[in-house]
């Protein structure tokens, strides 16, 4: 497999100077939307550079339930969003089945929930043409034995679970294969050079190496998600008006149900459980915040989520949770008094013409389920501005099944490893059973970096490394050791990667640990601090 850089130098007029990249379209923000725009444009023959200041799905794209909405969730609050969800989820199930598990979904009411809402629900679904089948309580509990014995109502819908990391990785990889479009992680926008109402270049820096990078593009797409307002400000635009809602989720150690389980009531806290692979995600909360820095879960939020969730599934009260995390939803301003749950989950595409710019647009808001549509709208605008008359094809071209996202699926790596039965292919992450061959393959396609800059976190994002019950305690050490052995890591940077990885996993664990898991934490601390002294490692 050739590297991204060699592909681009052979087929595109990129600068040989490493500090300058030339492309047709610069996309800022590696969430599902940004990667969706990249793939959409590449399919129209347009070369792109995608940058993210962290890595793929570092914002809301990677911090949600992974729920592919049937639309039923929004029937009472936002009919348009509900219809969009229905259409898009049906499309994605056909076009990207490798990223989706067609779990089906249940909406369940328990004793005490509003019976009027429950009665109205099928009619609300019908208005959005969303399939909704009523189940008896006995049928529902037969399907999902963990459901509460206080269940009073149940409907079945076509919810599914989707792996946003797999989607983003596959989007980026497809764009790379089509025309050598480039993705660069850890690349932060510092300022735009604007001349005569046009962004001429974007000045960036690598947050790891502090190297400067200038990207010259004819069009710039702001797909910054919650950060879209900040990015627009750098371009001098004041028309992106977002409010921030923090949502907190819990990762359950076990997959509790086969179906997605939603509470049968207007959207509220802790009312969705989404099974994904071998785990489940439970959430969320919604809290208005003013700043994007230092966003993290609180014990109160976690207690609330578990309390609400266990009304549907009592076993959640005593279940083992692996981690908790919070991400920020960017919501479009203007919903006013009704609260953030009712604020539009729709999206906005802004061409910024009113701000005096002709080659800049912002796509924000929306949701995971509708990312393809959002990307298509943005790509339509950009392609039109470039004079490209090709129609978008993401509604008909299937996402290729390739190597890029294959290791994010729980159980995929061990199944392949077991089938090959090669005793020399050592397992590095024992919880999720990720073998060295998977790590080799991931490191071979670095996100625009040299392999020696591929952090453990970056490998974790592209695989299941660190996602299991040990939360990286052992595999962080083993993967690092392996990369040192293979010569990818040569200096103290590898230790810093290891420390950063543990820090990140610890942040997620610290609020959900009790009982037996506390012993595990102690063990991890003894290893990481006592044995390796990583707490004494100099910053940078």
């Amino acid at each position, binding site marked *: 497999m050739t590297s991204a850089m060699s592909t681009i130098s052979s087929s595109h007029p990129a600068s040989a100077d490493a500090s300058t990249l030339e492309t047709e379209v610069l996309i800022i923000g590696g969430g599902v939307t940004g990667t969706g725009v990249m793939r959409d444009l590449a399919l129209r023959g347009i070369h792109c550079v995608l940058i993210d200041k962290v890595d793929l799905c570092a914002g809301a794209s990677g911090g949600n339930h992974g729920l592919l909405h049937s639309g039923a969730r929004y029937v009472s609050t936002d009919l348009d969003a509900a219809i969009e969800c229905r259409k898009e989820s049906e499309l994605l199930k056909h076009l990207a089945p490798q990223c989706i598990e067609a779990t089906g979904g249940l909406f369940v009411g328990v004793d005490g929930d509003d019976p009027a809402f429950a009665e109205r629900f099928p009619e609300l679904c019908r208005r959005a043409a969303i399939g909704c089948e009523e189940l008896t309580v006995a049928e529902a509990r037969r399907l999902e034995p963990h459901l509460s014995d206080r269940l009073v109502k149940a409907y079945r819908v076509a919810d599914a679970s989707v792996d946003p990391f797999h989607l983003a990785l596959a989007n980026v990889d497809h764009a790379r294969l089509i025309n050598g479009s480039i993705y660069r992680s850890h690349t932060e926008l510092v300022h735009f050079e604007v001349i005569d109402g046009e962004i001429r270049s974007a000045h960036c820096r690598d947050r790891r190496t502090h190297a400067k990078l200038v990207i010259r593009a004819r069009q710039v797409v702001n797909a910054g998600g919650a950060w879209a307002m900040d990015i627009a400000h750098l371009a001098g635009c004041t028309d992106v008006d977002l409010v921030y809602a923090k949502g907190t989720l819990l990762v359950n150690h076990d997959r509790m149900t086969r179906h997605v389980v939603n509470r049968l009531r207007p959207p509220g806290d802790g009312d969705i459980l989404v099974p994904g692979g*071998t785990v489940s995600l439970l959430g969320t909360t919604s809290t208005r915040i003013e700043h994007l820095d230092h966003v993290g879960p609180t014990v109160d939020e976690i207690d609330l989520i578990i309390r609400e969730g266990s009304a549907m599934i009592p076993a959640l009260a005593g279940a083992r949770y692996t981690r908790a995390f919070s991400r920020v939803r960017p919501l479009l301003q203007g919903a006013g008094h009704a609260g953030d749950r009712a604020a539009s989950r729709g999206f906005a595409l802004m061409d910024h013409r009113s701000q005096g710019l002709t080659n800049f647009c912002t796509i924000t808001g929306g949701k995971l389920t509708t990312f393809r549509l959002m990307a298509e709208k943005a790509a339509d605008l950009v392609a039109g501005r470039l004079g490209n008359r090709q129609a978008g094809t993401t509604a008909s071209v299937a996402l290729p099944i390739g190597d890029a996202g294959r290791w994010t699926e729980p*159980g995929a790596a*061990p*199944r392949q490893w077991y089938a090959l039965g090669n005793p020399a292919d050592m397992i590095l992450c024992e919880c999720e*059973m990720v073998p060295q061959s998977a790590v080799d393959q991931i490191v071979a396609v670095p996100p625009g970096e040299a392999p020696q800059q591929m952090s453990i976190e970056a490998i974790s994002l592209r695989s299941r490394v660190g996602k299991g*019950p*040990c939360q990286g305690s*052992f595999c962080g050490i083993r993967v690092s050791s392996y990369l040192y052995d293979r010569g990818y890591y040569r200096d103290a940077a590898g230790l810093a990667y290891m420390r950063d990885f543990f820090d990140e996993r610890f942040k997620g664990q610290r609020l959900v640990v009790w009982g*037996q898991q506390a012993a595990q934490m102690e063990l991890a601390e003894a290893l990481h601090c006592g044995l390796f002294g990583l707490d004494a490692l100099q910053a940078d």
Partner: protein
Amino acid sequence: MAQTATSPINFKEAALELLPPGANFDACLTCGLCSSGCPASGLENMDPRKFIRMAMLGMDTELSTTPWVWCCTLCRRCEYVCPMKIDISRLVFLARGNWPKDSKPAGIARSCHLTQFGPSTSAMGMPPDDFVLVVDDVLQEVRATQPGFQHLQAPMDKRGAHFFVNQNSREPMSEPDEMVPLWKILDLVGADWTYSSKGWAAENFCMFTGDEEAWRDVIRKRVDAVNDLGCQVWLNTECGHSYYSMWEGVKRFGLEARFRIESLISYYAQWIREGKLPINSRWNTKGIKFTVQDPCMIVRKSYGDSIAEDMRFVVRTLVGEDNFADMHPNRSANYCCGGGGGFLQAGMTDHRRTYGKRKFDQIAATGASYVLTPCHNCHSQIDDIGHFYGGNYGVVHFWTLMCLSLGILGENERHYLGPDLRALID
């Protein structure tokens, strides 16, 4: 060896049912203590931690078909060292049971069949009449040829005897003279004992097939035989799995056993302490070194360390404090030798010897000339790996060495003695 005919087990759900909360698969820290201490790690590319993780990842087909379940000897060392006390062997046992009958290792399956359907419960299929005949033949010969043993007893079907003594089929079938030292010891201590013509055999390969029903059938026959004779103690001789299969089986299947289940080892210790068995180490004038194998079945899996202490008391008395060297680790943390769980009969010789390498190294490190093994499977396996890896040690039963110490070991009872030991008594 591979199988496809039965549908896979849902191991995660099975674990939830079979294992206690708090010591279930979901409590696993993936620390790997189980695997690093498991001699079967690496065989068939598997180890105990992989077994748990594959269960949690839903790899039921793989776990239902991996031949590794026949390499795991069900020794439960993984559980012993696990900080969360997760018992993996229960699920391995379940997986074994789920294999189609005709795909299971033939040696184990055949032995089970013979054990299950004969009145003797003998894995070698020895009928009651033959057993009675062999015992009587050997007894008559000893009476006729060994001075001082003209009145030696080997009672058969004696109602109300205190001890119901079982017998591993290997002796009456292949090496009948090996029965004699035990008879002499029982005679010396004045034990009130009997053999039974029914349910006399010790071994239970049905336990190793994973077939609970067959295991229960065998144990029920033996329980009935002991109850019928009205004995107070079912005394297991120097054999490991036969003790465990009876002790665990009676509890597991809720059988009414009107007797206690004991191992000969603890009686050896008791009789020495009571002065009934006057053994000593004065015979060991050359300082011949011994080590001892803790059979998993009677130490870690049932009695615990108490019987390991009894065993060391017996060994030290028998060979001399200075001539005893323990293996490390030992007692409940000891490694299985690789002869357990039916491995010897599973037809996986290379794997079994690979497994046994760790035991061989442990023995070599003691520098001992002999390994005392109060277990038939340990005895066979340790003997085999000694030859295979070029070791220079012998393997002996306790009863042999005890009679040697007492000066009553007959000519035909010295099969397992090396020249150094023979030289001391000739």
